[in-house]
Every structure is written in structure tokens, then in C-alpha cells.
């Protein structure tokens, strides 16, 4: 009898606990930020969606433009697919004001709610970064662990992390797109 392969299922990344016989996976906690259109952004805005998260600075001259270019590929590919959203967090809360994010978004010709560029309190942004990258830390080859520059994180409808890639590398993003497609099929 020939074996049939089903659709690829992405692993659920991050720490897990076992509570009363159930597996409890690492999930992104509640958050509240402001986007480029001055709208409040919370988990409610991503309910029932999968989304790609990254962290950036509008003034970064090297890494971030490369990552933004790859995010643009994702934006263009999934523009008409309502199941997929993009969420970019600015880690430079002092200089990346809402106005500056708006200017940056307009330059890229990107629109909410598809691709939100958000800012907020520094400790909230860093706190949520830690939540996303706690999984990348384990796999990171960089000594000291926190090098998440340029990483893109794929999150499912339950706010669990399912994949990540190097957002500066087009080939890594090509494979990441396959992960996104696999997650869409899974759902």
C-alpha cells in the first residue's frame, strides 16, 4: 500500500507546560500599541488571523531596509488574502513617532489593517519582543543569544509561534512563504 503524505504541519515553537494532561504552548500575551494611523492595536485585531511579526527602526540604514524589502514581498503576495496580516514593531520609540511611521508607511505605499507599523511604551515593545524571540534565542547561533535583528516570526490564530526566518535573506523568506502557505492550509 502506498503511503500518502498529508499537508505539511508546522511545529508549535517555544516552551510548553503540561497542565492536567493538556499541553499548554507558549503564546503571545496581550498587547496594546498604536499604529501609523493612530489606531490602537491589540490582539483583538488579529483574532482569527495568522500574522507575521518583525521589529525594526525606520532610520536603520542597513538591516531594516533589507527586511522591509522582504516584508514587501509578503505584503504583495498576501495582499488580497484576508487571513494574513503583518505587524511591524518599532523598537525606536523615541524617534519613530506615529507621524514618522505614517510617513514611512506612505513612502512604502502600505495600508492598515494589512500591515501595521506600531509604536508604544519602550518596555511594552521590548517585553513583547522577548516573547516572540524567546524561541529564536534557543535556536540562535549568536553567542549571548539576543540577536534577533532581521528575523520574521509567523504566528497562528492561537497566537502560537509556528516558524521564523532570516528576513534579510530572500531564500530564507522563500521558504518562510511555504511555511505561511502550509499554515493557511492547516487552518
Amino acid at each position, binding site marked *: 500500500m502506498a503511503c500518502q503524505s498529508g499537508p505539511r504541519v508546522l511545529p508549535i515553537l517555544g516552551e510548553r507546560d503540561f497542565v492536567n494532561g493538556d499541553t499548554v504552548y507558549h503564546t503571545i500575551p496581550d498587547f496594546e500599541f498604536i499604529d501609523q494611523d493612530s489606531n490602537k492595536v491589540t490582539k483583538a485585531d488579529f483574532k482569527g488571523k495568522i500574522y507575521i511579526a518583525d521589529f525594526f527602526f525606520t532610520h536603520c*540604514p542597513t538591516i531594516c531596509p533589507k527586511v522591509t524589502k522582504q516584508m514587501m514581498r509578503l505584503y504583495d503576495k498576501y495582499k488580497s488574502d484576508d487571513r494574513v496580516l503583518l505587524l511591524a514593531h518599532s523598537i525606536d520609540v523615541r524617534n519613530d513617532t506615529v507621524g514618522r511611521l505614517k510617513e514611512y508607511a506612505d513612502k512604502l505605499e502600505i495600508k492598515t489593517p494589512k500591515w501595521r507599523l506600531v509604536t508604544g511604551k519602550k518596555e511594552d515593545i521590548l*517585553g513583547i519582543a522577548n516573547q516572540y524571540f524567546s524561541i529564536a534565542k534557543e535556536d540562535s547561533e*549568536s553567542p549571548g543569544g539576543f540577536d534577533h535583528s532581521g528575523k520574521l516570526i509567523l504566528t497562528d490564530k492561537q497566537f502560537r509561534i509556528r516558524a521564523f526566518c532570516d528576513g534579510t535573506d530572500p531564500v530564507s523568506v522563500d521558504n518562510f512563504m511555504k511555511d505561511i502557505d502550509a499554515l493557511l492550509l492547516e487552518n
Partner: protein
Amino acid sequence: MFKRFVLPNRNTKNYFMKLSIYFGLIFTLLFTSSQCKQVENDKSGELLKEVFELHDSIMPMSESLAQMSLELKNLDSKNDSLPAGMNAEYILQTKINSDKLYDQMMDWMRDYKDPTNMNATDKINYLTGEKNKLQKMLQETQRAMKESKSILDATK
């Protein structure tokens, strides 16, 4: 008459010699100038590469520093396991220093100007200045990371 046209006289020889010297000088100047420009372009290209390499190595450290600063803020400074010299004041200063260095990196990125349209000399001077700034920032960031890490490790 034939001799006059075929064989140059002394004045004609001097004229052509001077002309050759002038042209020789002009070509030498043009050649030297283009060589200098090439050297300047190579130098500014090299400096640009160094500036970006420094930026790329500091940026992830800045993010780590910011995370550690958060952890320092949440630290219970009355922790009895803190070694001597690591009192609340020291922890606070380390945190303030880390925040200051993080902001410095953000401000550097904000203020950085694309040197593409600068003339060669200005480009070299500008990039040399930025390289020096980043080298200093790198050393200070590394020191701050070491201090933050030693406090956080001591409290684990």
C-alpha cells in the same frame, strides 16, 4: 624651399618641443587627478563598509542592552545575594548608562546622512567621523553589557 617645409628649423623644433611638454603635463595632471579620485573613491567605499559593519555589530547589542536594562529595572535591589559593590545605586547607574547608550544608537541612526552626493573629501571626512563615533559607542556598549550581565548573573 623644399628644405624649409621638410626639415624643421630651430624655431619649429622648439615650438613642437614646448607643445609636447605642455601636452605631457596636461595628460599627467589629468591622469594623476583621475588616479587620486579613484583612491578617494576606494577610501570612501572602504570607510562606508566599515561604518555599516560597526552599525550592524552594535545594533543587536543595543537591543540586548535594552532588554537587560528592563530586567535591571525589575530587579529587587534588596536581594541579599548581591555581591559587595552592587548596591541599588550601582544598579541604577548601570541601567541609566544602558538606556543612554541605547538612545545614542537610535539617535545615530536618525542623524546618519547618506554620503552619496557629497564630494570625495567631504565624504571621507564625514565617514571618518561616523566611524570614530561608532567605535567609541561599540566599546561603551560592550562595557555596559558586561556590567549589566554581571549584575543579572549575580542575582540568579
